[in-house]
Every structure is written in structure tokens, then in C-alpha cells.
């Protein structure tokens, strides 16, 4: 969790609120911006938004929890996504997912305790020619990089500096 005072949170939320002020139907865009600012929907930031909009915070959670791309907990430094779209599915995505679950020790949607990795599944990233597809921080790995995934995870986990090669 991040340690911020309520005032600090409000100061960071204020410009986002100002950007959307006076417009209709902006709740989702607003929450997207808040998430971009904090990395996830931080509880006190949600409260700050709710206060400003004069809505109960439960209303915000009601909307946000409907959509899969809102997160209520901090995510890892590296977001590892396995594509489970149809093309990837029939070209072996389930096996890749199982292997990553084992290597990272987490299930999709979870983050490792050291906040280094989050494992997620995605429905299609649109490069089915490379199926099965794995992406790290929204960058799709080519086949050569995919083969090096295991050693990348190990070096990244032990904080070795040369690990940046695949990730960024």
C-alpha cells in the first residue's frame, strides 16, 4: 500500500477532477485517470472523487467493479499477460499459462508478494500470427524473447541489472 496523507491524495486528484468538471458521463474516464495516477484505485482517492461528485463512494465501487480493468490493489512492477484468445488457445495458451503460474507462483489476477509480477490473462491482443502470445507491460514478446522468459523471471526476481533486456 502507498502511504499518503489524505491531503496529498486530494492534491493529486484535484487536477483530474478539474479536467472533467462540468461534463456528462465522465465517471469512467475519471476513474481511468485516477488509476493512471495511482496505479490502482486507491481507497482514499476514491473517497476524494466521491466527495467531489457528491456521490456515495459505494456508487463508484459499483461502477468500477463491473469493469475488469479497474484494480483495487497495487499491481506488480511487471504485468505479465497471457493471451487466451481463440487463436492462442488452440495454439497452446493453456500450457503457457500453467507454466507461468508455476514459475511465478501466482494465479491470473494475482500479484507476487514482492510486488514484482502481476499475472493476467487477456482476450486478444490482435497479433494472432504470433500465437501463443505473451506480453510484458503491454509489449508483445517475439518468439525469441518468449523462449527466454523463464530466465528473465529468475533474474528479475533476484534483482539483477541485466534483466531489463526483455522487459522494457
Amino acid at each position, binding site marked *: 500500500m502507498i502511504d499518503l496523507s489524505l491531503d496529498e491524495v486530494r492534491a493529486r486528484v484535484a487536477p483530474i477532477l478539474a479536467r472533467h468538471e462540468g461534463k456528462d*458521463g465522465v465517471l469512467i474516464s475519471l476513474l481511468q485517470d485516477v488509476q493512471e495516477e495511482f496505479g490502482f484505485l486507491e481507497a482514499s482517492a476514491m473517497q476524494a472523487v466521491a466527495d467531489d461528485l457528491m456521490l456515495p463512494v459505494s456508487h463508484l465501487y459499483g461502477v468500477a467493479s*463491473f469493469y475488469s480493468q479497474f484494480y483495487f490493489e497495487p499491481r506488480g512492477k511487471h504485468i505479465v499477460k497471457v493471451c487466451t484468445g481463440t*487463436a492462442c*488457445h488452440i495454439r497452446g495458451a493453456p500450457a503457457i499459462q500453467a507454466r507461468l503460474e508455476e514459475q511465478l507462483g501466482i494465479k491470473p489476477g494475482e500479484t507476487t508478494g514482492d510486488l514484482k509480477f502481476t499475472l493476467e490473462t487477456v482476450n486478444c*491482443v490482435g*497479433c494472432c500470427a504470433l*500465437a501463443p502470445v505473451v506480453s510484458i507491460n503491454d509489449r*508483445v514478446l517475439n518468439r525469441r524473447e518468449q523462449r527466454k522468459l523463464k530466465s528473465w523471471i529468475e533474474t528479475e526476481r533476484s534483482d539483477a541489472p541485466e534483466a531489463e533486456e526483455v522487459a522494457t
Partner: protein
Amino acid sequence: MKRLRNVAALEKLRATLEKEPKPGIEVRVCCGTGCRAAGADEVRQAFVDEIERKGLDATVTTSGCQGLCERGPLVAVESKGLFHLGVDPSDVGPIVDLTLDRGQPIDRLLHHTSEGETVPWRDDLPFYQKQERVILRNCGRIEPTDILDAIRVGAYAGLAKVLDGMSPEDVIEEVKASGLRGRGGAGFPTGRKWEGCRAQPSGPKYVICNGDEGDPGAFMDRSVLEGDPHSVIEGMIIAAYAIGDVADGFIYVRAEYPLAVANLTTALAQAEELGLLGKNILGSGLNFRISIKKGAGAFVCGESTALMYSIEGRRGMPRQTPPRSVEAGLWAQPTVLNNVKSLALVPVILSQGADGFSKIGTEGSKGTQVFALTGKVRNTGLVEVPMGITINELVYEIGGGTLDDIPCKAVQIGGPSGGCIPRSLFDTPIDFDSLQEVGAMMGSGGLVVMDETDCMVSIARYFLAFTQQESCGKCTPCRVGTYRMLEIMDRIVEGKGEPEDLDRLQELGEWIRETALCALGKSAPNPILTTIRHFRDEYEAHVVEKRCPAGVCYSPGRYRIVEEECMLCGLCQDVCEDDAVRESREHYAIDAELCIGCGKCYAVCPAEAIVIETEALEEAETEVPV
């Protein structure tokens, strides 16, 4: 850029652009998502560096998806029409030296037919021969972030014609005459939708572009939005003009498409700068603005009423119709919602006339459709074909057949709500009505090829698991019904199904189809119902013989220890997490009741004494000595 005051100014600008001298040589690097993932950015940079180093008279441009994703990154040397495939940054030096400088193509990077013939020109590739690119007319041929490049090749010509003397009624008549049906899946006639909205007395009205392409394995709309955003914007402006009393338009884009959002944002800003959006468009008095709305990850938001709630900032749950969206849509105002591809077709219909468009396709389905051709097919990519082409032509001639030449078993068409069509029906023409007859649907254009190693039961379960997870939970048939169906499917793929399960699935499926609230729920049982219809024998193998013919599903009882080979080491028993390996005095055996078919014993056995039965064996199930 100077604001264009009227239609004549636009046409004058186009004429000037057409006359501009072309650069000596143009190298066009495909930067669609597929090529980018394969390293197109590095290739583009390498070209820029190398050309500058050599001081050649050549420019490097990028384009949206050129279609042949399987062979990316693609590099077209435009002025010569040469097409290099699978280009690596290390290939750039030779291409610049030989092709650009001396006009010789690099043979190993060109396409070769199975007879060994070289095909240097893009349009001669078998992949492109049967295609007819109308929706994708500019994709891969223009720089998507440069409005002038788009205008040069004819963007906003349809709008110019509309504003130059056509009444809104004329526009609607023209669209109706073209026979255009919505490309989002349902195939509702676009002209009639516009007419219905125009007839509503109360304003303001809204125009929405549905770019919430959520199907797994589909990237058609994304490619259009990324590669040719102006055709969609132009289509929306024409729609706004035809409907009347429209002040605002929205493009709803899936959040997973950052490049589409970026290119659209640029395109909207440039269009506004030129006076093609905003107040008094081209001096016609039409006012229209477009904003982008990013989705937040909910498949059901592709449903029109759910999408509108999502734009309003609410939970994206569908509501019952009527009232239809054209009567009460966004903020309960009359609203027209069209798919990306439908809108991209509108400018073509207006600029070239309805007759030209309706010549392509079949009686009931006019024009072309874009498919994302994926799965076990050689040429994965984005293809556009006239309606009425057969599945055979699409898979074998354009797709180049199956990977590794394993016989093709079926295609799945129309995304998770679509259906599976078996090989025996590959002569079916692809149009709205023929597909419906065989139990599938057009959908938005996903087409997945499956071969003999794929298990249809497992595939059907995969699609159902997807829709079940994406069910919004509002109506009971979808929320509970799909869950129950998935339970049965899980049972079947685990080898615990019963013959009666097939009837249960069919009955439940029919009920959901009849009673669910929205199209997502109504079509969720489709994959199951079509596979039972066309591949009943595979289901029966699972529930009666307890085996998976393709060898995909976990099939208990499939593993057996061959006594004569066994050296009694006991490793299989050590690794089994389900205690399925029983030991008696000089004997190890696998208990079919407990075995989940994980394969760990098979992998560990040093004597290779464990076999996987491809046929069900009676004795393997009964003989469990303890």
C-alpha cells in the same frame, strides 16, 4: 494547416496534393499490431538510418495493417511495388544497397510458391488475389497519422459529394439502395436504421461508432481504426448529416487498443483543424464533434444498450428493447450506433454511388466483409473478401491451407457467439443468411481454423467459459443458465459426463436462446448447439466411451501400465498427486476412477511402461487389482 471554408477548397487541396512530386523511392513499413510485435519499429528505424547514411533519395513511411501478419514485418518498396516479407533489421542493409539503389529485390525475402516460383509483387501474392479491399482500401497504403495522405487518396470525397447538393433524404436513400447491412454481426440494414432515427421528432440525437471489439481472436475493427481512422470519421459525419439534429458523436474503443486511441486522437485533431469537424463543417452549417470513449474491459459493452450506459458512466448492463436505440438511446435520446466497418463503408457508397457497391456480394448480402483469419492456418492475417465467397476459398486459397498440412476439421466463425462449421460444409458461401442456415453467424468477422488435433468439445467449452465469465448477471437465463451449461461441459471434458448430458445441454441451450435479455445471452449457447449438431460423434465419444478422439481432454482411464514392461520402481506412485496408482505384490496399476490424466506418471516412467490408450479399453476400466 488552413481551415477549409467549403467543398471547393477541399477539392482544391486534394488536387494540389495529387500534383505534389512523389519522393524518388518510398519504403513503406507495415506498423500494424502484428508487424510491430514482430519488430517493425526496429526495421523502420534501421531504414531511416541506413538511407540517411547512404544519402539516397528515398523516404520511409509507415502504414496500418497490410494484412499478411504471419509473414511480418512487411516492407513494401512502393514505387516498384516490391514486397519483402519477414524483414529483420539485419536485412535492411542489403535491401537499401540492392533494391533501393540498384533495383534488385532480395530473393530470400520474397514470397515463393510451393512450386518454387518467386512472387515479387504484392498484388500477385495468392493471399491478395481473391481479396477485394473496400473497407481496408486505405489500410496499409496511407500514413494513418497524416490527414493529407488520406485526402490525397480520396478521404472525405464522399462527404464533399454529400454536402455539395445532396439532401439528408438523398443520403439515406443512397445507403438504402446500396443494401448495406451492419457489419457488427446482426446485419440490420444501415439505411433503415438511419431513417428510423431521422424520423424521431425530439433532439438532440447522437451518433456512436462501436469499436468495442471484444471477441477473442478478432482484430478487424482495430486494424481499421489504427490504419485508416479518417474513413470512420467521415462515415460518422455523413451519418450525422443524414440523421439531422446531431451535435455529438462518440467512438467507443476497447481499452486494450492504445494505438487505435492514439491514431484516432491525432486524426480527430487534424480533421478539426481543417474544418471537417466542429462548427459549420465545410461551410455547410453542419455542426458536429466527435469524442473518444475508452472502454474499461467488459465484453458485454459491445452490446448497443450496454455500450450506451457505459458512455453515460454507468455499469454496462444491457436493457430490454423496445424502445430501440434509434428511439431512446444515449441519455434516452434518439441514437444511431454503427460498427466501425459499416461506417468505413459509408464514404465509398456515397462517393462511388450505391450501384458500384451493390455489384459486389450476393443478393441478400452486399459488399465485402473483413475477417481475422487465425488458428491453424498458414497465412494468419487480415483479409477482406466479397460476400458469397466460400469457406473453402477463404481457408485454402487465401489462407494457404492448414499449418503442417494436418487435415482441417472445422472453422469457427463469428466469435464466441458464433458456431462451428465442419469441413463437409466448406462449400457454404459466406453471407449473412447462408451462415445462419448452418447454425453459425457472421458476427463481427473472427474466423478460426481448427485441424484434426483440436477437440470440438473442448473448443465449445472454451467459448462457453468465455461468455459465462462475461455475463453481466442481470438476467437469470444467462447468469445461471450458462453457468449450469458450463458445469455440464466441465464434467464432459473431465470424462465424467453421461449420455443424458447432451439432451440437457440442448434443452438448456434452447431455453437460454429463447429467454435471455440481450444478444450476448441469446447467442451464448451457439458454440455448444452447433458442435452438438455437427460433431455429435465427438460428444458421444466423451460421454459414452469416456475418451477424447483428439486426445486433448483429460480422460481418466486412458493411462495404463503395461505389466510386462514395468520394472516395479514405484516412481509413478510417488509422483501421482491423486493416489491413482495402486500397488499390490508385484504389480502396479492405475485406478481409472481416481486418475485425472495429468500425465506425470507417463513422463517419469524410466521403462516407458505407461501407455496412453487412444481407444477406450474395456479391461482398463474394470481391471483394478488391489
